[in-house]
Every structure is written in structure tokens, then in C-alpha cells.
């Protein structure tokens, strides 16, 4: 028993048996998940806000990528940036992204962190720019409805 304490591998085994070992993972989440836009105007910008959490137990450089994709195999990067995050720290990102998907629904806006399997996304139904006024009106109405509900 005493010998095992002298060896690093032995100490590790003791630690596994006695102490709780931290779990290492990365968290990706939308900031206001219930308020994500459901519709958008083609060519216009929509706000996207999300957080990246570092629970990996060490400082890491995270680079997020916001992409859009539609059923017609259109795919494009909308925004990207990088930052070093200490263990246990979170990075809140708020960006406006311009939608360029086709009008074939749905347009999927995906946030990922290359090097990590986590990703989040939301679906937007795009409307033609000519219907911009009407769409904005319905969006505002939905927003008001949401506020009342919560």
C-alpha cells in the first residue's frame, strides 16, 4: 500500500478510488433559447446570442463558427471569432448574422466549436425581401406574445 503511494500511477489509482474526479466537457447553449427567431427576411440580419462554457479543466482557445445551411445544399459561414477561455469560464457571444439561405424552408443556423463535438442550431423560415414589412410586423407580434407569456 505504501509503495503504491510512491508511484504516480499508484497515486492516481488511489485518487480514482477516493476522490471525485472532475468531468471534462464543453458547453454550448443559446442565451435566450425560448426567444430564438423563427422567421427572417432573406438578406437581412438577425441577432444570435450564445455562450461557450469551458469545463475542460484547463485553459483552451475556443473558436466559434456560425453557419447557415438550407435543404438545397447551400452552406456558408456567417461569423467566426476566437478567444482563450480559462477553466470554468464562459464566453457569451452576441452577433448579428445576415441570412442568405434560399427560400426553401427551413434555413438552419448552426453554431459549432471546431475541435469539439458540441453544436447547437435553430431553424428559420425565410421570407422574401418584398414581404419585409409584413414579416417584421408578424415578428414583432410574436415577440409581444412571447413577452406576455413569460
Amino acid at each position: 500500500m505504501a509503495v503504491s503511494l510512491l508511484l504516480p500511477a499508484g497515486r492516481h489509482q488511489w485518487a480514482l478510488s477516493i476522490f471525485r474526479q472532475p468531468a471534462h466537457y464543453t458547453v454550448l447553449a443559446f442565451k435566450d433559447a425560448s426567444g430564438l427567431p423563427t422567421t427572417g427576411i432573406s438578406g437581412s440580419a438577425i441577432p444570435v446570442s450564445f455562450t461557450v462554457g469551458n469545463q475542460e479543466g484547463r485553459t483552451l482557445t475556443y473558436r466559434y463558427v456560425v453557419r447557415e445551411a438550407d435543404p438545397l445544399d447551400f452552406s456558408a459561414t456567417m461569423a467566426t471569432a476566437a478567444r482563450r477561455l480559462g477553466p470554468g469560464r464562459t464566453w457569451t457571444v452576441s452577433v448579428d448574422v445576415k441570412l442568405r439561405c434560399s427560400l426553401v424552408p427551413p434555413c438552419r443556423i448552426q453554431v459549432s466549436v471546431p475541435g469539439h463535438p458540441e453544436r447547437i442550431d435553430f431553424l428559420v423560415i425565410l421570407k422574401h425581401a418584398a414581404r419585409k414589412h409584413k414579416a417584421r410586423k408578424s415578428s414583432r407580434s410574436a415577440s409581444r406574445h412571447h413577452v406576455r407569456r413569460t
Partner: protein
Amino acid sequence: MYDEREIVATDFPDAGIDVTERWRDVSWRDFPRIEFSWALAASACLVVILNVSVIAGLALPPFIGPALGFWFLVVQPVYVLCRTSLWGQMSIAERVGLSLTSVLLYLMLAGLAADVMLPVVGLRRPLDPIPVLALADIATVGVFLLQRRYPAQRAASISIASVTREETRTLIAAAACVVLAVLGANRLNNGAGDQLSLAALVTAVLTLVFLLIWRHEIRETTTNIVLYLLSLSLLLMTSLRGWFVTGHDIQTEYQVFQLTMAHGRWDIANFHNAYNACLSITILPTELARVIGVANPYIYKVFFQLIFAACPVLVYTIARRYWPVSVAMLASIFFISFPTFLADMPFINRQEIALIFVAVAVLALTNETWSPRRRSITLIVACLGVEVSHYSSMYIFLGTMLVAWIMQATMRLRHRTHRSRAAHAVPPPWAQAASTIEVRSLLAVCALTFAWGYLATQSAGAVLTDAESAISGLLGHQVGARSNNVGYSLLFWRTPSNQQVLDDYTNAALKLRQATLRDTTYIAPPGVASAYNLRAVPEPLLPLTTAGRLLSDVGVPVAGLNTVIRLTAAQIEQLFVGAGIIALLLARWIRKRVGWEFFCIAVGSVVVLAVVTIVPDLSVDYGVLRVFQQALIIIAPVLVTGAIAIFKPLGDARAAWPAAAVCLGIFVSTTGLLPQVLGGYPAQLSLNNSGQYYNNYYMDSQDVAGVAWLSGQSGVLPSGIQATHFSNRFLFTSPSAVTGQQFIEDAVPALLRQHAWVILDNSILHTGLATASYDGDLIPYRYPTGVLRTNKNLVYDNGAMEIYR
């Protein structure tokens, strides 16, 4: 081996007094002067330290603080009560059982009284630390005064010098089991292997073997301690899995516990649910948590297990009433070998407490040194403990007592008729014995059950519904359901296949969808939903180990072998019980030894078990395995008697050895040791980071982080949460978020709602399998995750949990 060992002097520390007779003339002169002793001074100091720390909110050192809190609230009062002459002449284990249940009942009822009365005088949070501390102080002073008033004539103590070599070895081995079980669970929780848990099981088997071999050299008290430690190690192996609350019923038990903690009081109106009606998982854990000061999940994970580990010792003590040491030991081993004990009891904390009261009730009604009146009163008080701890256990025990009473009444009537015909006929001793279960005590127990279940908590509605549907199913008016667990019964040969159960589950979901379509927006039209033909998949098996492969190479079908052993073990136990009952009826020498009342409640237990198995719906609602576990408190020695009777042709002296071999064989199989060594069997949670229980009930850091994130989102409660079975582990239980209004719906594909938050857990993400819980069965099926990915937003991902909206 089947022999009688003399009971040692320390087993009966003193002659008792009848409290009911001497209680009336108490005066201060009856209390002897307090003599100074270092133990008393140390106890007083520790009590003061604990009081100061709780009042000032000071955290005591880890491990020492919780140990001190548990000692103050439970261990010390039990110890002092044991040292009174209140219990009369009985073994130490019986005294501990009675004292322990007295303390538990006091904590629950005093907590309830405080809960009802203190708000009237303006104290709105009667279960906050200071009122709870006051209750504990009252208990401490109360038991101390009782001990001064009714001191035991001779202190029951064990001299260390008198401990034999055999006793030392078994005690050390049993203690090592506990240490290995704890370290083994920690290793598994940290993602390491099963080596220490397996070592714990091997040590447990060896300890049991030597306990049986050295039964002549080991005293009763040592046997009790060894059985306690072995039981504790088995319980901790399961209860300590996961750093958070892990298990099935325990999730809702934890929710009602946290609800009581958050409100600082218990109120059935906070959450009108049968779980919330159990004081054993509301008031009791709250009181423990206030004083012990440990992370709340560990109240259940450790301290409830410390209490429940006494139950197998009480089973041993019950068996010792009428049987020799060897039979009592085997009875106790059968009790802890039953799969429910290891795999489920640590997750059913309310039943753990209730079973201790059941055991004490059986001890009370079989205690022939007490007067019938005292037995009846103790029985009724113990039944009160069962009722407030766990309603279902009370119904089962009430059914058992009812059958026992009918048997006794029938027998008396028969002999009365017989005697009137033959005036000089002498009734047999069985018919002459004064019974404890008589009309008055039964009525009193019924009244208690009605008062608590119906009047006080209104939680008895479920039993009436169950009774109605059971009778309806029995009469053939409706199709009743039966759990697949009845397939282990000798009474049933066929149960529906997993696919049939899953089809029923899907059909029920589609019917519900159709019925609620007007008010609810589901994510796919009904036509698409009907296309969700869920396919049941076989439960994954552990890969064959080297030993398993060796056996397989010589033609032994290992997977089949494990399954056959389990099935045979279940059926052998039933066969033994049947043989035991017949042996009691036919063998005069056994009948002379066993009390008539005990025989009646043993038959009552078997009848209730048969009823739960046969009558539709009951096996689903109450769980046939749980009922068997409860019945084993009474019938375990009958089971051993049956085993010995079956092996009797081998000779009187040798019959017990094969019975012991079968008992230990069952222990090796059901604890998971054999399947783990060979492979080819579904993984058990206590030994693996895989398997059905792990996938369904295990909570890891990412799960907890996901739930914490979800509880911080707006619009979660109105929109609702859906998750595949077992969804209650995702309930919000933090003090700021816990509520009795929350419920989590099943995320079966046909019922996925457009605006609900849907949780996909680690199991689905990494194996693709979800589990349907239907009619008491758990059926794994492949979950169509594409439905969610196509229709909903993936709003949260931490690698082990995805949340969709």
C-alpha cells in the same frame, strides 16, 4: 449444521419491566443521582459542540461533522434507549431494532407535530435547523431521563479481550467489504474499473462461508455486526453509484425532500402526491439534513443505508425466535441475496424505513415474553411507523395480517365446534395460544391507515383505483396488465414479449395523442406519428470475459447459463417457500418450535404475494419483487426450512449443507459476481458503467449542468419538459427551482410537442437507445432522433446531454 447453539449471556442483558404498569407512579425520587463518567462528559461536550455549530451555522470538518450529526440524532438516542430496561428480556439486536424504530418514529411524529403547531405560534419554518435541533435536544434529554428512570440491570457490553480469533477475522473481513464497496463505487463513478467492487463481493462471499463454518465459535452479537456490515456494503455498492442522485424512485423522493427543505416545512398541499405523504422521505431526511450538514443527496445515499442495513439483522433476529443459528443465518443471506435488496432498495428509501418498522412489528407480535396487550400496542405503534413511512408497505402488511387473522379465527372456530362435539377433547397448543393479531388491533391498524392515507393526506385514492381495476381485471371486465417480473413466478409461464409491450405502449401514446390533438400541437401529423413503429431491441449483454470465453470454448452457453441460473434461483426460492409451509404443516417437531401466529403471518405473506402476482394491475403498481422482499422478512426462515426439508433425503445432518450451498450460489449470482466474472449477462449498475439501470437512472455532471441550465431558462414550466424514461431525474430540485407543480412528460416520438423542451440524455446520444416504461416493464428501443433534429431547435449541448426546443 442444522443445530441449536446456546445463546450467550450478553444476548439477554436484563430482565425487563412492563412500562404500562409502572409508568403511572413516576416521581423525581425514581431518578437516581447522575454519577460522573468520562463517556457522559464526552457525550455532553459533543452535544454542545453540535448545538453551537448548528445554531451558528458553522461547518464542522468533512466526515467528522456528518458523523457527529448522525451520532447525535440517531446513534446516541438508540444507544441510550438500548440501555434501558423498557424492552424487557431480549437480544441486543432486538433492542437495537426497537430503539431504532422508536427514534425514527419520534423524529417523524415530533417533526410532524412541530410542523403543525409551530406555524400557529408564528414560526413559519418549523423544519429549519434550530427547531429541528430543539427536537433532537428534547429526544436526547428524554432518552437520558428514561435511561435514568429505567436503567438496564446489567449493561450489555462486549469485552474486546473476549473476541475470539474467528470473530476478529469475520469482523475485519466484513469491515473490509464496506471499505471496498465504497472505494469500488467511487472508482466506477470516476470511470475506472470494477476491480474493487468485485473484490468486495468476493470478500462478502468468503465472509459468509466462514460465518457459516465458524457459527459455533462466533457469538450472536458478532454475527449481527457481521451481517450488518455485509448488508451495508451491498447497499452502498449501489447507493453510492453516481456523484448525484441516481436511481428510479429516489428521484421523486429527492424532489419531495427538497420541497420540504426549501419550504422549511412539510405540507401535503405543496405537492399533492403519494410520495409527499411519506414522512420518511420528507420530514425525516429534512431533519437529518439540518443536523448532519452533508450534501443533500448523501442523506439518502449514505445515512438511509446505514439505517436500513439493520433490517437483515432483524430478519436474522426474527428467525432466531424459532430456529437455530444456521437457519437464521441462511434466512438473512436469502434476504440480502434477493435482487431487489441490492439493485432497488437503495433507490426506494421510503420502503427501506417502512421495512424496518415491518420487521419490528413482526418481532413484537412474536415476542412471547411480553403480555398480549403490550404486543398489541407495540404492533399498532410499529404499524403507525409503516403507514407514515410508506403507504404501499402498509397495505401489504395489512393484507398479511388480515389473512393471518382469518386463519386464526377459522382455526379457533373449528376447534370450538370440535370441542362442543367431544367435550373432553383438548385443543392443540396452536389453538390455545393468545394471539396478537385480533379484531381490536386490526381495527386500530385499519383506522390508522384510513386516518393517515385518506383523512390527513388524501393519498389513498390510488389504492382504491388499483383495487377497482384489479377486481375489474379479475372479473374479466377489462384487460389487466401484469409486469414481466411475474415471469419469474411459478404461477405464470408466459408473459408478453418486449415487442408486444412496446406495441401496447405505442398504441397508448397514439390514443393519447388523438385525444389531446385539439389542445396540443405535436411536431408531426397523426399519419406520420402512426409510422413511428418502435422496435424493441434486446438488452445489451456484457462481453464474455476470459473465463466466459473458456467456458464457451468447451461448449457451455454462458449467456444462457446466466439467464437459467437467475430464473432457476427465482423459482427455487418459491419452491423452497412452498416446501417450508408444507413442512411446517406436516412436521410436528418443527411445528412445536414455531409459534402459531408466526405460521399464520408466514402463510399470510405467501397469500398476499400470490395475490399481487395473480391479480391484474397489482404487479404493475406495487412491484411483485418489492412485495417478495417485504415477505422475506417473515418467510425467509420458512424458505430455509423448505430447502432443508427438500434435501432431507441426504440425511438429517447433511441436509443443511446443500441448502447453504444453494443459498450462497444464489448470492453469487444475484449480486452480479458470477455474471461479472463470466460476462454474457446484462450489466448491473453496482459493477458497471453500462446497462439498463446505468442508462436510465445514472446522473453525471453533464446531466446536472444541463438541468441547471434548463431551470434558468424562461418559459420552461409553462411549455413543459419531455424526456425519455426515466424522466424524473431531470426534475428541478435546487432550493430556488424546486416546485410541486413540475412534471416531465414522456418523449415517446408520437407525443413530441412543438413547444416542449426535449431532453436527449447520454444513453440516447451514445447508444441510440431509449427505454419505454410501461406496465412495470423497462423495454429498450431505438429512438428516432432524426424527428427532433428535423423539427426542433437544438438549444443546448454539452456532449452528454442535448436539449431541444
